[in-house]
């Protein structure tokens, strides 16, 4: 198991290299001269020249990349083009806001999804099953930014129950978390259901029946543990959708998180800030996947631990 974890961590290295290379190239593929952008369109050529030199834009590309990488490793993303503040300082508080939002939403989707999925599977083809699966299908198909807008319309503007924007107070948390957690809950519910139904048809469930185990015990003891294994993977993958969902949700609810920061930076053509936030979000995503892989491995003991 330990070897597996270490190997997985080592496997991340090329991926992280790939991510930084892509993000680095982003800057260079962008039409227009970044120095010119920084200096402003009317700036005299000498100023642009000076900025180019300061940014190292005259160095060969590989050298520039290495310099870029060195900085990234030390979390030095440079300064924002908008306000010349160090990007890392701006990111830090926003990072925690996004993390909070993501964690609450994930918890909501897991909780709702698994319960709904079990009910559905156990009462296959019943009214409850059909209703749950229908709701899940809607949850899956709804644009989450629109769901956010609709929730805001009803519960903030019409009913006045929750503040429409911002983040921090318990009231401000509710709507964004529902907005973001719905799609995940839908996916998890569907996965739990189909996984349960598949497990129930396995040979070892028949063995349990032949032993005289009661149907309830079969479902909650013998089937559920096995059925949840693929659910873990789906939850992990869902986290990626969730992270990207924060971009939209934060925009809708005007939350000062990383997602909104990315959009604002893109709008302002503040490339260092865009680069920084994309790298941070990707690393976060990659790490979550690592944790999911490891826990999947742990749960699914059938996989040879050394292989």
């Amino acid at each position, binding site marked *: 198991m330990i*070897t597996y974890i270490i*190997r997985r961590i080592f*496997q991340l290295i090329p991926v992280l290299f790939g991510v930084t290379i892509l993000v680095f190239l982003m800057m260079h593929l962008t039409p227009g001269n970044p120095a010119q952008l920084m200096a402003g369109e009317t700036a005299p050529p000498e100023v642009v020249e000076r900025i180019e030199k300061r940014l190292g834009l005259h160095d060969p590309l590989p050298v520039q990349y290495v310099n870029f990488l060195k900085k990234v490793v030390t979390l030095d993303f440079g300064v924002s083009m908008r306000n010349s503040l160090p990007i890392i300082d701006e990111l830090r508080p926003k990072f925690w806001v996004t993390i909070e939002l993501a964690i609450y939403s994930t918890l909501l989707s897991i909780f709702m999804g698994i319960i709904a999925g079990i009910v559905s599977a156990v009462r296959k083809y019943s009214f409850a099953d059909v209703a749950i699966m229908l709701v899940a299908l809607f949850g899956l198909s709804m644009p989450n930014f629109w769901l956010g807008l609709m929730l805001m319309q009803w519960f903030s503007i019409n009913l006045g129950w929750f503040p429409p924007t911002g983040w921090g107070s318990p009231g401000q948390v509710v709507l964004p978390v529902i907005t973001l957690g719905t799609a995940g809950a839908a996916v998890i519910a569907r996965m739990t259901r189909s996984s349960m139904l598949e497990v129930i048809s396995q040979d070892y469930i028949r063995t349990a029946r032949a032993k005289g185990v009661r149907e309830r015990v079969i479902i909650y003891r013998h089937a559920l543990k096995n059925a949840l294994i693929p659910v873990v993977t789906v939850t992990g993958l869902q986290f990626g959708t969730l992270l990207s969902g924060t971009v939209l949700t934060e925009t809708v609810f005007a939350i000062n998180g990383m997602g909104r920061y990315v959009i604002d930076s893109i709008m302002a053509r503040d490339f260092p800030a865009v680069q920084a936030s994309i790298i941070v979000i990707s690393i976060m995503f990659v790490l979550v996947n690592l944790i999911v892989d490891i826990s999947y491995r742990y749960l699914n003991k059938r996989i040879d631990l050394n*292989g």
Partner: protein
Amino acid sequence: MNRKELLKVENLKQYFPIKGGIFGRTINHVKAVDDVTFTVYEGETVSIVGESGCGKSTTGRAILRLDEPTDGKVEFNGEDIVSLSKSKLRRTRKDMQIIFQDPYASLNPRQTVRQILNEAMEIQNVVPRSERNDRIAELMETVGLKPFQADRFPHEFSGGQRQRIGIARALSVDPKLIICDEAVSALDVSIQAQVLNLLKKFQREFNLTYLFISHDLGVVRHISDRIIVMYLGKIVEIGDKDSIFKNPQHPYTKALLSAIPVPDPDIKKNRIILKGDVPSPIDPPEGCRFHTRCPFVVDKCRSVSPELETRNHMKKGHQAACHFIEEIHSGEHEATRDLRNVRQES
């Protein structure tokens, strides 16, 4: 024996890498086939028997280069298959065909029988296009199917009929050698008998050579001229049918033969029950690979690997790989383990 050597396998090794460790490098190998040497003469049937994991199917696949062998030589008709270029290999494959175990998986469900047979002939370009339909009709008759059934899809046939189609496909390119990889294992006994009869008939009619891979000793006894017994990637005994069945020398062969249930309630056999399971081919035991289960094991077996050899009391061409063939035969060397050991000590 003055017959022509059709297939000569020398020191064949097939190791499958196991990736692992921190860098996902090859940390070990499954030694599926480890230094196997034998010859098949034209027109005979040689069987390879053994339990799962002994490397019998891997040997068959390596001979055809369906998996690239790790090491060794496979001489077919005087040509070294292993060193052939890809395009030359493709041409040589006309002469060596294979029939698989699973009659449901070995035919493309999307092709009709006609398409399957036609494609085989097209690949090797054996029959002119205009004559192919006649040839297909002929092949169908040969394997006991009706020519009009050629336009049906595999799922419309029963398991036994599908296996006949597989045989027809193999025959369509006029091969010299057919490797039958557990070709009748998935069939019910009554159907199995039909297919075995068919295989024997073709051997007579087309002068075919068979390498027959099977775990079913009853079937092997029926069809073979010579038999190779494999255990954990190595040959433990090789000989003609009578030598193997009536005069087995290796303790493993003896145990294997004694383990087959006989359909006659009056025969009370002196069964040798082997201890434990076949060890992992990743770290095969030192010395003789069978020593962990052998009832006659002594210290020498644990360190020195025995070679295949013929002793005085054995027929020519009959070889076994055991240090104590003669001693066990004469009763000098007695069992060191209980021969009827059902409950196992740790």
